């Protein structure tokens, strides 16, 4: 048994029991969908239809339907690709890195954050797939025995590394998530009747909760966490190398890998907060996803936001310090050129807003956190837009300078990708437990409000009263 100081803030508030936790989390899965779920799902599904329509149009017409031109040949497509991949990173950070650091608060949020990772990577993966122009021959990117000529794929190219990184990230995250789900699906199986018992029975893989299975399960989780931690760092590092290994001023910087990884975690946590603030309210899980959970996530946003902010400033300084004319121009053009509004939106949303989280009051004010998390999402989208478009639109040859603006196809694909993401998330929230039931039960004896009060009484410690 571990000893937890009663001075630590509780992770489960109010009275609780193992039975209560099962009921609270499995309840929404077993009940009929609520009114809000139905509305939310309908809106998401409508957006998904828009996505399917615009993707269909794109495939029928060709990539020319996008607003790209010979100067700006990466636009919203790659912006949105990097945006969605980044969002996924919080899930892996919460489930893997925080597991290695034995952070107990992760138990309430890991499941939904991991689901978010998978859905975000699905959204992300679609962009390079479609950008390739002929997605039906995308397997040419794999090192297959070559019947189309005699060449193998070029393993020196970061774009090829990306294919391996993203597909490995997707499949390993999916496996990690599913292994964690097995015991909880078994819980639902043993409460269900009829057809749903059969379905959850098949999905539960025959989990029996024996001590032997648990002991192996824990080791598997730990090793998967150990694998996912370098994996998540490698994924956004490789994404950043798509830019950093090129010779485009504004891209060709060694700071990119750590700066992209920090930015990814920053945006991912913002998305987790946006979703969880709604989900905890809609599914009445406020006693399991408490203000303390939101508080710590805000702190992570503040730290990663500060790393991103210092990276922006470092980048600017180094551009000047390098004394390379082109490098200097790229950055001056970013801040004061025709896309100045994108640059300053990015700076405001990503550098200034996270600093508001120094205030404890704001970290524990749900409305404020919700609004700031949306600002961070917007800011991080602009970061990718700024890096991609402003670096490309004025290149070495002024006669080929050009401006870029998206067509309706790009806009509806971006709006629609939220439809894809939220449709998957709504389905997940309805049919699978959104909180890891078994994992939350393991912290009842150390971190629930009831238990902490008991220990404090026994040890004669007075818990300071906190006013939220």
């Amino acid at each position: 048994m571990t000893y937890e100081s009663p001075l630590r803030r509780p992770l489960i508030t109010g009275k609780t029991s193992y039975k209560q936790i099962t009921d609270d989390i499995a309840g929404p899965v077993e009940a009929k969908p609520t009114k809000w779920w139905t509305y939310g799902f309908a809106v998401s599904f409508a957006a998904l239809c828009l996505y399917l329509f615009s993707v269909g149009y794109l495939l029928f017409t060709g990539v020319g339907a996008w607003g790209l031109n010979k100067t700006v040949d990466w636009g919203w497509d790659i912006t949105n690709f990097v945006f969605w991949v980044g969002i996924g990173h919080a899930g892996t950070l919460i489930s893997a890195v925080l597991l290695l650091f034995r952070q107990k608060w992760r138990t309430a949020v890991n499941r939904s954050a991991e689901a978010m990772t998978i859905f975000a990577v699905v959204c992300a993966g679609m962009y390079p797939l479609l950008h390739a122009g002929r997605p039906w021959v995308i397997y040419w990117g794999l090192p297959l025995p070559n019947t189309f000529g005699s060449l193998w794929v070029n393993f020196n190219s970061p774009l090829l590394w990306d294919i391996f990184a993203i597909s490995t990230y997707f499949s390993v995250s999916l496996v990690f998530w599913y292994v964690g789900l097995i015991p909880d699906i078994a819980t639902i199986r043993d409460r269900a009747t009829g057809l749903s018992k059969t379905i959850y029975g098949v999905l539960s893989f025959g989990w029996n909760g024996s001590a032997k299975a648990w002991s192996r399960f824990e080791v598997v989780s730990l090793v998967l966490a150990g694998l996912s931690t370098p994996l998540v760092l490698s994924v956004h590092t490789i994404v950043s190398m798509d830019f950093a290994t090129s010779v485009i001023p504004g891209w060709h910087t060694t700071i990119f890998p750590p700066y992209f990884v920090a930015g990814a975690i920053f945006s991912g946590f913002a998305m987790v907060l946006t979703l969880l603030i709604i989900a905890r309210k809609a599914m009445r899980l406020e006693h399991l996803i408490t203000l303390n959970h939101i508080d710590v996530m805000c702190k992570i946003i503040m730290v990663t936001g500060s790393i991103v902010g210092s990276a922006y400033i470092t980048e600017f300084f180094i551009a000047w310090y390098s004394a390379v004319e082109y490098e200097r121009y790229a950055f001056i053009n970013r801040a004061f050129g025709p896309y100045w509004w994108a640059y300053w939106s990015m700076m405001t949303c990503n550098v200034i807003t996270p600093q508001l989280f120094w205030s404890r009051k704001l970290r524990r004010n749900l409305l404020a956190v919700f609004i700031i998390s949306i600002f961070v999402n917007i800011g991080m989208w602009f970061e990718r837009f700024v890096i991609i478009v402003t670096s490309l639109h004025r290149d070495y040859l002024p006669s080929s300078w050009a401006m870029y603006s998206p067509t309706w196809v790009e806009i509806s694909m971006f709006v629609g990708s939220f439809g894809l993401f939220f449709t998957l998330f709504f389905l997940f929230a309805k049919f699978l437990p959104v909180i890891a039931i078994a994992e939350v039960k393991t912290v009842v004896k150390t971190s629930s409000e009831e238990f902490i009060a008991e220990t404090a009484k026994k040890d004669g410690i007075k818990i300071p009263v906190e006013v939220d």
Partner: protein
Amino acid sequence: MKNKYLLGFFNDEEVLMHALEEVKKETQAPIHEVYSPFPIHGIDDILGYKRTRLPIAAFLFGCVGLSCGLGMQTWMLGYDWPMNIGGKPYLAWPDFVPVSFEFTVLVTAFGMVGTFLLACGFFPGAPAKIPDPRVTDDLFCVAFNASAIGDKAQAISQALKHHGAIEVREQEVEL
């Protein structure tokens, strides 16, 4: 196959752990298995389970993944069809790091999870061999194989009750 088991049910994992220690001391009966809704730390020692060898399997899978990834790239770009890319070396080792790494992670993760499922006998649609549906909810259960404990059944059942079991019963069940 169904067998006869003596099942003791508890509603708290600490009470269960204490009871198991006491029952072991009093009767020296071999415990078949313990079922719980979440992992109980320290129970492996009471049951005498050795540390799982899954990490060794993971390491071996990792070695396989790494050598496959590195070997594939070396063979393809170094021997099978070398490509001159801007006059750079054919075997550019640093460039092979990312793909080799991803291969290692991929093979390790899938290999380890596969081994785990195989070792536990879990697969999609496998029958759930549980003593009671509530062991995945809020009930903790210890099972003794009736044929292994022989005439100690009475003593064990009394000891379990004495140390806080909420229910003790004999049951024909597949575990």
